């Protein structure tokens, strides 16, 4: 899976790493049990502080997206993406609300937003099917 970090983005780097991996899992690019680079390897390859990568991995671990084991290293835990829906909506709802507020402020139509969500949903679903 391709993981991208934008050094000029306002989004914190740890969040970008976390979001990138979650997107990979959602689209099926990352499968259950897939290995992920160690904190050190990822930090050195991206050229970002190890604390930053560690923060992202700890967050992913607490959200149940990855498993960090001494013997097997870091692995994807896609089977139980596994937080329940309510918890997910609770944590992601505020982010979605903020995006909607910004869209409304710019006068973007509800239908256009719906269309955009449908488009991304279809795209992720399509990639997921292609994998299986």
């Amino acid at each position: 899976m391709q993981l991208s970090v934008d050094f000029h983005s306002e989004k914190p780097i740890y969040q970008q790493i976390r979001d990138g991996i979650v997107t990979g899992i959602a689209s099926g690019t990352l499968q259950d049990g897939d290995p992920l680079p160690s904190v050190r390897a990822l930090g050195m390859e991206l050229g970002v502080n190890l604390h930053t990568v560690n923060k992202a991995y700890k967050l992913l671990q607490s959200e149940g997206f990855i498993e960090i084991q001494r013997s097997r290293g870091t692995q994807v835990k896609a089977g139980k993406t596994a937080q329940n829906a309510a918890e997910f909506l609770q944590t992601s709802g505020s982010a979605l609300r903020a995006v909607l507020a910004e869209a409304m402020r710019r006068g973007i139509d509800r239908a256009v937003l719906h269309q955009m969500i449908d488009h991304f949903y279809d795209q992720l679903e399509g990639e997921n099917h292609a994998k299986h």
Partner: protein
Amino acid sequence: MLSISHASIITFWTLAVLFCIQPWFSRKNVLFGVVFPDAAVWQAPVPKRIIRRYIIGTGLAAVLLFIVWIVSFSRLERSISFNLAMAALLIGDSAFFVLANRQTRTYKKAVVPADRLTNKMIIDTTQSAHEPLMPLSWLLALLPLFLATIAVAIWGYPFMGSNIPTHYGLTGPDAWTHKSPLAVMQPLIFDVLLVIIILFTRRAPAAVKGNPNAAPGYALYRKWLNGLLILFGLVTELLFFLMELSLIRPIHTYLAPALTWVFPVLSSFTLLLIAFMAYLFFRMVRAKESSGPIFDNDRHWIWGLFYFNRSDPSLFIEKRIGIGYTVNMAHPIAWLILVGILAAVVISSIYH
């Protein structure tokens, strides 16, 4: 002039020529330490002019310094005049490089559209997880000779003479110091430093990055370089082991004749290793084409020569110019390693 040794003249001109051709010891999309989206920069008229000026400048500087060296030679002590000539060549040619780096940066700013380079780093997590890395077990190859040298140093100590050679010329030892445990163990410091360098360069990132195809085949090249460093370590260990052994008086008589041919053989082998390293560089680095979005991190490359990036955890990184690695100056531990290397060099040449 006749008393200037051939060896010093050859060393001077080898360094001078290496400086002249230095721009070619980089990836194809790097010019004077400045990164570009592709190799086309080498064909553009302005960069061609910058390269031409650099070659003429460094060439003329070398000729001029050589003349000054010859003229002033009789007035200075032999080694001082050589060291001064080499230092002047190093500083003079580096100044030309820094100038060329500045001109190339200005050219890049004016010509390369911002969207051709990126502020993003894209990596392939699957590729990273299966990257060819030098196995740590390879380092075990260095252990037997290391332990053997320590054993010789400890058990042979009472049988060693009161003076220990600290420097070996082509004809054998040419500088000595009083016998002490430190003097006897000194060669081993070099081995420890080498192992530290191998460990830190094992994951050293490429000088050009941005996406998985920015430096194609780099991980394998790095593994090869690590392997060569281990071979180099074995050669030096063998040399140190024999040196240590030759310190023991009863053995010295038998070993001394053998050492006269061991030195040239091992030196030739080291030269072969360096030549092979250069071959690998041109085959696995220079010959490769970067593609995809290239990360623009020139701001971390001071004068295109020194890497300084606080947030990058790497202590070593591939050089932008030249073969091998350079340290990330932003980390104090990198400075410590540099000081260690310099100290090892100074200690070994202090009695020269």
